[in-house]
């Protein structure tokens, strides 16, 4: 790809040519991440419907196929859904604030996609290998709530507004626990770079992954991630039985689909970050011959798929939390756990070297 750089320099001069070349190159790389991501989102919805169907002893979508091939029954469903969503009319309620009503889905999906810029897929395969990647991820995930709040307000509807307020309170509460859980990870790895965090978990087997020494933090992170994406059992922002469909009750067609895409892209993001920070990213579970021949990307995708399966499993299993119980879990359970764990971890890390070595089976410090 770099062979095009002289062409740009010829066209735009040496000052602008370099910058414009970088811009064009990065745009192409962004597309190379986003298009597979959106396909993954489409098939995640299919997987969700199939898996929940099996858990409830149903068949799930099995009609739409490609070119009439019978054993592909159901695999065309996400594509058909997407086409349907594009063709449908976007209805804007009369009392709605038109500009903000249409801006909200954009604000919801932008951070969900932007966070992928720093996610490494293998030691070399990363768009932006920046030092402050973890901070950037935190910043991007904290922006997602704007889409929800603005959608709720701009719809000019009670149910949408209630959903938006629930969602805002919930996301802000769980962000704290999530941030503190990640603080433990960066204490262990002493780096904010996601590639370095994975490299810090190297050492031969899955025992070196941060999931083992930081197991409570892994649980806190993952459950907060479920809450942050407004997934069941924490989906009071949508709560069909109480507030119809929450913040997106007035949305239809593509505007609704974008919220949908953002939710699933966020799910994949949380699963990816959990696998990178706690499950060793692209590292094989045991570093011996049949396992370490498989490329790292495959391991990473496998871990992401397992984490995503948990999301779907939760949805099929747990009843919805009551609102005050969600708040209690966030503030009174998770935040104290994380704070205590940070202090403990810091104390252990400050132990003298000899004391650390004298622990049997100490792999981590």
């Amino acid at each position: 790809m770099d062979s095009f750089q002289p062409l740009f320099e010829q066209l735009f001069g040496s000052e602008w040519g370099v910058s414009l070349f970088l811009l064009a190159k990065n745009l192409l790389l962004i597309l190379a991440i986003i298009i597979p991501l959106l396909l993954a989102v489409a098939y995640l919805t299919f997987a969700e419907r199939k898996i929940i169907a099996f858990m409830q002893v149903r068949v799930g979508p099995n009609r739409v196929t490609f070119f009439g091939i019978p054993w592909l029954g159901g695999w065309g469903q996400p594509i058909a859904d997407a086409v349907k969503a594009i063709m449908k009319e976007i209805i804007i309620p009369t009392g709605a604030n038109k500009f903000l009503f249409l801006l909200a889905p954009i604000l919801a999906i932008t951070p969900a996609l932007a966070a992928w810029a720093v996610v490494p897929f293998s030691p070399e395969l990363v768009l932006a290998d920046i030092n402050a990647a973890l901070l950037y991820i935190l910043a991007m995930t904290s922006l997602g709530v704007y889409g929800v709040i603005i959608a709720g307000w701009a719809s000019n509807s009670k149910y949408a507004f209630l959903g938006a307020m629930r969602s805002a309170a919930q996301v802000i509460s769980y962000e704290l626990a999530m941030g503190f859980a990640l603080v433990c990870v960066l204490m262990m790895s002493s780096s904010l770079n996601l590639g370095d965090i994975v490299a810090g978990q190297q050492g031969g087997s899955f025992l070196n992954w941060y999931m083992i020494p930081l197991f409570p933090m892994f649980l806190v992170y993952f459950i907060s991630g479920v809450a942050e994406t407004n997934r069941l059992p924490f989906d009071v922002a949508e709560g069909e039985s109480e507030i119809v469909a929450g913040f997106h009750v007035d949305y239809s067609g593509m505007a609704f689909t974008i919220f949908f895409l953002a939710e699933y892209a966020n799910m994949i993001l949380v699963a990816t970050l959990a696998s990178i920070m706690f499950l060793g990213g692209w590292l094989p579970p045991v570093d011996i011959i049949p396992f370490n021949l498989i490329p790292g990307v495959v391991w990473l995708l496998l871990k992401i798929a397992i984490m995503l399966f948990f999301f779907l499993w939760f949805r099929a299993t747990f009843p919805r939390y009551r609102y005050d119980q969600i708040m209690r879990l966030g503030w009174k359970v998770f935040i104290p756990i994380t704070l205590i764990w940070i202090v403990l971890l810091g104390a252990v890390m400050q132990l003298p070297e000899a004391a650390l070595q004298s622990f049997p089976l100490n792999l981590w410090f």
Partner: protein
Amino acid sequence: MIFQDFVFYSLASVVIISALGVITLRNPVYSVLLLVLAFVTSSGLWILLEAEFLAIALVVVYVGAVMVLFLFVVMMLDINLDQMREGFWKWFPFGAILAFIMTVEMSMVLMSKQFSSEIIQTPEYKSVDYSNTKELGRLIYTEYVYVFELAAVILLVAMVAAIAITLRHRTDKKSSNASRQIAVSRNERLKVISMPAEKKE
């Protein structure tokens, strides 16, 4: 004009226009959203200065938390603009004097020697491995540790005070105690009785 200049001027003009919008627009929700835009764009300016930690902290703290609560409150207010406009001219001289004093103060600070280009040098370009975050952390926890802890304590006191002011103990409120609910055993809630089957008449 090189590419950096172009980026700087576009970001700077967005900051200025959105900041003007914050104080001129009638709809307070638009004002808050424009303030968010101003924050995000100024974090872009900081990234241009290679101060990535400050830039991202601005987004995390202000945009991600503070402005969300702000938006939350502003959306729930039912603001009547006509009522707010009442007495505008009565209070105008007072406001104008305040604005004048603030402008003078700010220009005295910003146009002083401390901010002149002789004292503040252009930041050098750092190598790729240079981590802003690490350096900042080192400074805060070594040189400025007491000041930092003091600031943290002040914030804690403010937080405790805010909670203490709003906390009201109501006796008529019904709320569930989760730990008591969990501690309940089967025998307290459920009684299994044996009942002989009845004959069909």
